[in-house]
């Protein structure tokens, strides 16, 4: 796993509670624990829920992780700058219903592109408000959360279900056993990983979360990069909305409530710091897997959805505690 997950070896100032694993000079204890947790979830699922390993369930699982996955990547980019984007759930609803509404008049790819662009637009506005006026990201995107949700209802109070079967392709088509939408999400993570680790804007975004003033004095336009981060998050949310509407076959203005929380949870489970500057794409993907597996498993067990929420919350706390205990402080 990447260097963000595993801190470089230091002289510990507090006793370690877990033995260390080192591979090629890198401490991979946390990474290993993480992979082990996912493996454990899969094994437990396979042994205890008969339906887990059925092709139907696995395909469902792959489809279900698309929304959380896309939102989590966008969220990670924003969190790396030290910000937060609470508006993504509402953007999912808006872009979905906008696209579904436009399908009757526009070619399907164009309608879908417009949906994604609406997300880009909202992200741009979020970023501009935060960067230009130095407003708190929490407040700006909280306002955006309610505004955009309202706009989704203004656009259509009732769900829209397009009849053109082409509308369902993106969400339901498969390439062999793998859903196309999952491939789209994986592509976003792959490109996103390269973006964050190997391009100047990506490194700038990580650096801004670490120390914005240093970055500014290094001659990098901090505001522009902050706007970029929120725009990426908006784009991911817009895309997630389109994919979700296409998969379900119906767009609802009420969809996506609290989706932002799952996205934040995935980043945090993946070890991202809400203070910014630390987080990794791979580990966030791991966080998405953990969340989706837990959801799926509880569904298969037939656990009541309220209890699912309780359990999910407890599991998040547990995962973070393990990371925290294991983090060597400098």
């Amino acid at each position, binding site marked *: 796993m990447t260097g963000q997950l595993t801190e470089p070896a230091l002289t510990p100032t507090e006793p370690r509670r877990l033995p260390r694993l080192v591979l090629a000079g890198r401490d991979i204890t946390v990474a290993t624990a993480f992979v082990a947790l996912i493996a454990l979830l899969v094994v437990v699922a396979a042994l205890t829920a008969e339906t887990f390993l059925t092709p139907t369930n696995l395909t469902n699982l792959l489809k279900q992780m698309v929304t959380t996955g896309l939102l989590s990547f966008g969220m990670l980019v924003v969190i790396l700058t030290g910000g937060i984007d609470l508006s993504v759930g509402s953007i999912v609803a808006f872009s979905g219903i906008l696209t579904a509404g436009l399908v009757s008049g526009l070619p399907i790819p164009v309608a879908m592109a417009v949906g994604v662009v609406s997300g880009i637009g909202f992200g741009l506005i979020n970023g501009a408000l935060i960067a230009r006026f130095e407003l708190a990201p929490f407040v700006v995107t909280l306002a955006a959360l309610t505004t955009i949700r309202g706009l989704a209802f203004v656009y259509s109070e009732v769900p829209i279900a397009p009849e053109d079967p082409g509308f369902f392709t993106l969400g339901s088509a498969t390439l062999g056993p793998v859903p196309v939408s999952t491939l789209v999400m994986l592509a976003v993570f792959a490109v996103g990983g390269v973006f964050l680790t190997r391009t*100047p804007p990506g490194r700038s975004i990580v650096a801004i979360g*670490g120390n914005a003033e*240093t970055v500014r004095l290094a001659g*990098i336009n901090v505001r522009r990069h902050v706007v970029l981060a929120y725009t990426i998050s908006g784009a991911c949310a817009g895309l997630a909305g389109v994919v979700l509407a296409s998969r379900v076959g119906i767009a609802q203005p009420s969809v996506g409530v609290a989706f932002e929380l799952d996205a934040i949870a995935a980043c945090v489970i993946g070890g991202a710091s809400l203070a910014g500057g630390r987080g990794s794409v791979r580990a966030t993907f791991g966080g998405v897997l953990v969340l989706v597996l837990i959801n799926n498993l509880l569904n298969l067990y037939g656990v009541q959805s309220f209890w699912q929420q309780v359990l999910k919350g407890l599991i998040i706390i547990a995962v973070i505690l393990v990371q925290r205990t294991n983090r060597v402080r400098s």
Partner: protein
Amino acid sequence: MTLELRGVRKDYGGVEVLHGVDLVGHPGEVLAVVGANGAGKSTLIKILSGAQPMSAGEMLMDGATVDLRSPHDAHARGIRTVYQELSIVPGLSVTENLLMGNFPRRRGLIDWAAAHARAQELLDGIGFGAIDPRTLAGRLSVARQQMVEIAKALVAEPRVLVLDEPSAVLAGSDLEALFALVRRLRERGVLVVYVSHRLAEVMELATSIVVMKDGRVIERTEPARTSETELIGLMAGRRLEQVYPERRARPGDVRLSVHGLSRRGEFEDVSFELRAGEIVGLFGLVGSGRSELARCVFGAEPATSGRVQVSGGEVRFRAPSDAIAAGLALVTEDRKRTGLVGGMSVLDNIGLTTMYGMRRGPLIDAARRRERVGEMIDRLSIQPEGCASMRVANLSGGNQQKAVLAKWLLAEPRVLILDEPTRGVDMSTRIAIYRMIDDLARGGLAVLLVSSDLTEVLGATDRILVMNQGRVTGELRSDRTTEDEILAHAIGRAA
């Protein structure tokens, strides 16, 4: 109370900065600690105040060994420290800052009238009655804030009071109030440890003087038995010549010229020129506006008025990026807050300024960057070996400073502004940095060395600009001036 240090050593990550310090202070004594920057004064203060544990040695109070594990321990034993950096809360009133939660109450609620009266009493009692306890601390001048800071330390009636450069921001009647206070504390039997750069006031106030150099106490004397000149000689030592490279300036064409530059509330009507191959010092005490000026020239803050020219052409920097494009570089005074991204690698940090210029397609040209950064690491011998992928926060202070320098040198500047480049840096790194600056100037770079370190500004430069309260009050040739003359300009008392 008698305070004694025996054989105190301190190392930071393997680098020893205090090499066995012995020190005794008695009640009613004003023990002045003097020394050049890097002599170990700050470390000593941190140990006395419990902010840092000693690596070896012991501390005794009235003959009994004590083990200070935190500032709280020190407080409990009657030791209070007033640092140069202010710790008061600007958004609270002076009263709240002073009483810090110990408010008089009436029926469970804070009795504000009684609280303000109590604060006023405290301030009157130490001769700082000119401060209104109802004012928000942040509204006071820096000097008055410093006085509140001192008052706060005295609320607990400490038996040992450590003052770190208490007079740096004070002037006039405030300064006299401080002196009167120190004398009164002495009469009350408090041990005052007084750390200061200002030798004149040390001679006036101290009952004994301890001179530190390179992490050791090299002399203990009294004002009656010494002189300022002797102290300077002791502080600097004979190593002065070896520390600073021999300079023979051959100034070339004008690289940077500043005309009547002002920034409201910080500095006013500043003009100077900087030529290729020249190292110019910019000296000033805390609050003189020296760092603010450097930041403004670099475009980090906008100027209120004035003009800046680079190589003869008018420029208007709206952001540091403009200044960098014009060939300027600024190594800021606080590498943690404004010089480095602590959580990122040495490679990322050194490559930060130049990364947009090192692209291949949309990606950073990783191979080229690794090579250029590697060259810089070798050239400045940034340790440890193979540190490029290490987190920069894990390097020692000196190596972090070199990493900041490397970042800017990679941008190949034509004008290099260095703000306190040797603060908190060990002696060997200092020497390396001075050598590097000298080499760069020989290569035609124009260097502005902003510093509050007298010996440094005198030893490492060709010419010195001195600032006092936001104005340039003197311009001196380094080979024809003295520390006293520089200081006189810096406190606005030059003849």
